């Protein structure tokens, strides 16, 4: 009777110890496997690191190579919401005045042929269209048709080198940059977008050039893209978290 009054018996202690050792060993093995197969996101450390890593690793294992949801033409939103953007700087205003003829997309980093492409050059690579949803992390969403050229084609033209792990993209807006892994970079829906709903992409929606990434939340679809940098070391950029949003506490992987 006295034995059962005491919740900590020897057997329980041993059982608990074995479970704890197995747990720690399991975590160590999982950590090594995750590192080996590239399942740890750039912001996979710190107190939210385990959650970020679990989400990214599971999404990569479960949802790789599945195309984004596409919608019928009748579902295109009549009144899409552009969200607020910072007022354009003088350089942007000059480019806009010239009808964005002088807009350039610089492609550099771990590529065989660094390039500088105009919008006409991008269009010459072949236009694709998709009807996909923009989902903001705040909760709202809309559907539009997006017209542009897949990022994968541009990377192919530039001859992206085999050691490349991430593609960093930078906007003309101050300090706006983000990055994606090679799976998202190679996704046919990852679109350098120049048109929306059968017209030119309006400036409030990111015109003249927005990187649309329909399998991730809206904040990864940066507006006003001016530079694409392939890299094998994401830690060299900014604070090493893979984007400016992670520096403000937002997840690098925004497929969730």
């Amino acid at each position: 009777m006295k034995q059962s009054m005491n919740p900590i018996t020897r057997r329980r202690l041993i059982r608990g110890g074995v479970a704890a050792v197995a747990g720690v060993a399991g975590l160590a093995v999982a950590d090594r496997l995750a590192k080996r197969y590239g399942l740890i996101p750039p912001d996979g450390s710190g107190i939210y690191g385990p959650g970020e890593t679990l989400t990214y690793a599971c999404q990569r294992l479960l949802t790789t190579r599945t195309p984004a949801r596409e919608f019928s033409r009748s579902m295109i939103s009549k009144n899409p919401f552009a969200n607020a953007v910072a007022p354009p700087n003088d350089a942007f205003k000059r480019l806009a005045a010239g009808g964005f003829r002088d807009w350039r997309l610089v492609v550099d980093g771990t590529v065989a042929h660094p390039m500088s492409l105009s919008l006409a050059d991008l269009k010459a690579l072949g236009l694709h269209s998709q009807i996909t949803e923009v989902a903001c992390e705040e909760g709202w969403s809309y559907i539009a048709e997006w017209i542009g050229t897949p990022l994968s084609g541009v990377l192919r033209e530039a001859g992206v080198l085999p050691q490349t792990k991430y593609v960093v993209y930078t906007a003309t807006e101050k300090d706006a940059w983000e990055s994606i892994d090679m799976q998202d970079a190679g996704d046919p829906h990852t679109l350098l977008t120049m048109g929306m709903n059968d017209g030119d992409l309006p400036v409030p929606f990111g015109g003249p050039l927005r990187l649309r990434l329909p399998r991730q939340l809206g904040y990864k679809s940066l507006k006003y893209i001016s530079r694409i940098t392939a890299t094998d070391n994401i830690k060299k950029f900014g604070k090493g978290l893979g984007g400016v949003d992670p520096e403000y506490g937002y997840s690098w992987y925004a497929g969730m």
Partner: protein
Amino acid sequence: MRATHWLTFVAFVALLVTGGEIVISHPRFYWGEVGNVNTKPLFVIPIPSSRSTVPNGYNYEMPDENGWSRALHFEAAWVAVLAGLVYGIYGLWSGHFRKDLIPARRDWNWRAYRDRIVKYLRRTTPEGGPDGAEERSYNVLQRTAYVVVIFVMFPLMIWTGLAMSPSFTAAFPWTVELLGGRQSARTIHFFVSGLLLLFLFVHVAMVALSGFRSRMRAMITGYTRDGEEAP
């Protein structure tokens, strides 16, 4: 088993606080696939938002804490899901679900529910606690509440949560289509979280009524005062 209860409790509180924080960045709800400030909402929570783009008649903006709120929301969701997995496997294996949670076959009728409600209303239970069989297990109302929370509401929260993930729904489009769209999933997620909060209130109130200290001791240590193992 008790550890999964407390892990889930901690995760639930974190999910509730961060979920509320995320809601104030867009306190408007819609039905269907899309919804934004340019479309007609199903309903609007009349609170100031943390974003200036939401036109809700306030000149005041709430602090925007979405970054860490979202990170903690998903991390806590992982804790809840993993604790739920352990609990589910153990519950099946140990017979806890069969013995303690699924209402007995003879209670699968309205009369059993009515009788138990009448009993509550008449306070026929002896002073200071439940009687007879109920002292060691749960009555039909408790069982039903727990079954609904564990097997309906928590799975529905996980489902509607995943149905808001653009890459998860890319892989499994039916998870969002069955719910009627992304915004419907968000609205259901919000309502079920409210029901879970209601359950939490009633659950804590019931624990308090049946003797807060002894129930907490039982749920933390696994032993009741007389040294016998608690259910």
